[in-house]
């Protein structure tokens, strides 16, 4: 690798551009490509917009080695981190933000209540003091975005979940007992969502590890989010 290519690779990551570094293992010849590239020197026919290996690497973030007539080519994708949108600047969120950040998520906390969403309570997270239905559309959740609603307040959680259900988010979770979840399912059905659609919501939220404290619940939630990310 020459220094110019390394600089280009670091710049692409800093700019949030998804790229793949292709390396022919026999001689170290390299090429940096993105989804817009239409032809590759090292991977013949590996068009990113088609169902080729470069497109697969960009989609999953998983490196792969492809065989070519010129020898094996290693494809190393560098893609933006998965996002986690946390609705509710509550105690669980205070634990979940640092944990999810360490696990590699880019975390955003939404809460319309100014007293909750303070920089003092969330020194490391991006905190947005808005109603979730206003903001979630702007955040444009995609297949690499998870959304978890933690306020317990249907006036905040429900609009967030409705916006989440309209997106391709890989994970949707909502705090609340089975009884709360049942009532929520009914409200969402009234809002026009099919039972199948509402089934996307994980609730009660988190893996069943008997979590009791806010910190333990954060562990259970993060484990479930990672499970959904890796299953997809």
């Amino acid at each position, binding site marked *: *690798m*020459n*220094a*110019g*290519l*390394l*600089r280009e*690779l*670091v710049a692409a*990551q*800093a*700019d*949030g551009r998804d790229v793949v570094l292709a*390396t022919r*293992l026999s*001689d*170290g010849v390299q090429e940096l490509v993105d989804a817009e590239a239409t032809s590759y020197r090292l991977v013949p026919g590996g068009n990113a917009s088609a169902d080729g290996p470069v497109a697969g690497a960009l989609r999953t973030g*998983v*490196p*792969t*080695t492809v065989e070519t007539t010129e020898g094996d080519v*290693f494809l*190393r*994708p*560098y893609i*933006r*981190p998965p996002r986690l949108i946390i609705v509710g600047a509550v105690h669980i969120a205070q634990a979940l933000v640092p944990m999810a*950040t360490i696990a590699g998520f*880019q975390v955003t906390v939404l809460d319309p209540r100014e007293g909750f969403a303070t920089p003092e309570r969330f020194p490391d997270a*991006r905190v*947005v003091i808005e109603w979730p239905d206003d903001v979630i559309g*702007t955040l444009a959740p995609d297949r690499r975005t998870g959304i978890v609603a933690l306020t317990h307040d249907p006036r905040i959680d429900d609009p967030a979940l409705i916006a989440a259900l309209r997106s391709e988010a890989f994970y949707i979770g909502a705090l609340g007992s089975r009884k709360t979840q049942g009532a929520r399912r009914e409200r969402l059905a009234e809002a026009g969502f099919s039972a199948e659609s509402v089934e996307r919501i994980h609730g009660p939220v988190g893996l069943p590890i008997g979590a009791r404290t806010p910190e333990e619940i954060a562990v259970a939630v993060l484990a479930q989010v990672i499970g959904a990310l890796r299953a997809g």
Partner: protein
Amino acid sequence: MERDSTHRNVDPVLAQALEWVEQGRRVALATVTRTWGSAPRRAGSHMAITERGDFAGSVSGGCIEGAVIRTALEVIETGAPRTLEFGVTNEMAWEVGLACGGTVHLLVEPVANREA
């Protein structure tokens, strides 16, 4: 308002490698290209090594880093990339003590401190 923490997206090992290169250090980059079994670091993991043997990142649970550093120093000298394989069936693995099991394939390449 889309992002406020883009610097976090940069692989810290690549950032370190670039910093070293810009300081005029001679650097090699090791990358896990393939793993089988219980290899602790996934394909794509990086380790950057300088001519003085300083390193950042990891390519295993600590069992093959010594051998990778030795190879990196050679790669820095010769300027030619090399591939390495460590596994429980590989004699070199016993030599370096691949106690963690599994098989690891690596690419060790020089970072040429000149523009292409």
